[in-house]
């Protein structure tokens, strides 16, 4: 479903992705972790073309990303992206946030989109917040609206860029619960996160990145109980110490 073959990327002189080779199967959930600045956000931002790669092949849903022959706008409708800062549309209500892209991009009839939107908001536990504006919602509620907004497009892939990093601790689990439910329905997911409980519960694979390269990749059990490299051991000792 997602395949990186020898992908490289530079920000000016900075080599941010180094020879990335990684394949994600349909219905697979892959957690990407690593220290700050290791390139994990850049990695998933390349998948829907928010960042451009400079070298190597990146194939998503059988289409080559960055190829002039690929309609990226169309490909993006198949890929949901959840941002660290939610990025909800502040001038739209929760329901309008969910229905905006389906009605204008997918051309779904309004009534149908609204019905689906209400169901999705109910599914993420916000049945009473249809008409609330983002500024009236807590961080955890906003992030759940953002997830519903992605699901409204019925994507094949969902990407999460540190979805709980901007949240107060007591709101993290309500967002993780929604993500777990999405994963259990068989969504193909790549999740940049340090939430190891989430990784253990739903991920088939954990990818550890450092300085732009994939250092280690394995099942959550392998990675957490027997990390193979010094760098991953050092990283785990830091995040699991508390």
């Amino acid at each position: 479903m997602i395949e990186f073959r020898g992908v490289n990327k530079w920000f000016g002189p900075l080599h941010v992705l180094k020879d990335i080779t990684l394949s994600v199967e349909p219905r697979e959930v892959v957690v990407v972790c690593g220290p700050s600045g290791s390139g994990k956000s850049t990695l998933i931002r390349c998948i829907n073309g928010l960042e451009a790669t400079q070298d190597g092949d990146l194939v998503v849903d059988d289409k080559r990303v960055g190829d002039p022959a690929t309609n990226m706008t169309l490909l993006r409708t198949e890929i949901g992206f959840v941002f660290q800062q939610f990025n909800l549309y502040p001038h739209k209500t929760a329901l309008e946030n969910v229905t905006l892209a389906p009605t204008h991009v997918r051309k779904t009839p309004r009534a149908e989109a609204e019905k689906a939107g209400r169901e999705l908001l109910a599914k993420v536990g916000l049945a009473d917040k249809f008409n609330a504006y983002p500024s009236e919602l807590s961080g955890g509620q906003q992030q759940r609206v953002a997830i519903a907004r992605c699901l409204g497009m019925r994507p094949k892939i969902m990407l999460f860029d540190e979805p709980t990093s901007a949240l107060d601790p007591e709101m993290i689990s309500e967002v993780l619960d929604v993500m777990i439910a999405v994963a259990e329905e068989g969504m193909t997911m790549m999740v940049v996160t340090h939430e190891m409980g989430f990784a253990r519960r739903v991920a088939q694979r954990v990818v550890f990145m450092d300085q732009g390269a994939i250092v280690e990749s394995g099942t959550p059990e392998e990675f957490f109980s027997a990390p193979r490299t010094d760098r991953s051991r050092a990283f785990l000792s830091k995040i699991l110490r508390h």
Partner: protein
Amino acid sequence: MLENFSFRTIVEYLPLFGQGLVATVWLSLVSFVGALAVGIVLCAMNLQRGRLLQAPAKIYIDAIRATPLLVQLYFLYFGLPRLGIILPEFVVGILALALNSGAYLAEIIRAGILSISRGQVEAGVASGMTYVQRMRLVILPQAFRVTIPPLLGQAIVLVKDSALLSLISVAELTRAGQLLASDRFMPAEGFITTAACYLVLYYGLKGLAGLSEWWLGLRPMGSRA
């Protein structure tokens, strides 16, 4: 001091000031609509990455902002006929105000658009919106709100600038004051009445600004980085 001040003459000339007020209002209104069109086009050109459209827009905006409106007005009024383009005075006046104010509006609109966070653009991109859809559905509605107060500020400037049209004998408010001053040798009466009329227009626009802020306040919008 006031024994020489003739309220009677002012009353006598009130119909003239009334006509001037009406003229200033519609001249300003038409000019402002024109300025908006000029501003939107310039701003769209200025926001392009390619130099080809950006450079002319930047040069135009600089040229307008660096030169006095009076010089621009004279250039059009005296210059255009020499090029074989003969237009009525009021059209030249509207043209000058629209071209001048448009440059300022372009910068106001651009600031509004750039104030919308990168994350909003990315959210639109990620959901598969085209450039036009993003602008129409996500960026412009938000930019519009932050732009209303400076737009109305520029409208107030435009109303005052329209006084310069009296110099090319367009019959508007300041011209009415001039007429009273020269016909009856009463500059104090003439220009105080003119000034009072501008004050009325100013409060009208200020009220409009307040009204728009009240309306926007009804629809909450928390900004988020």
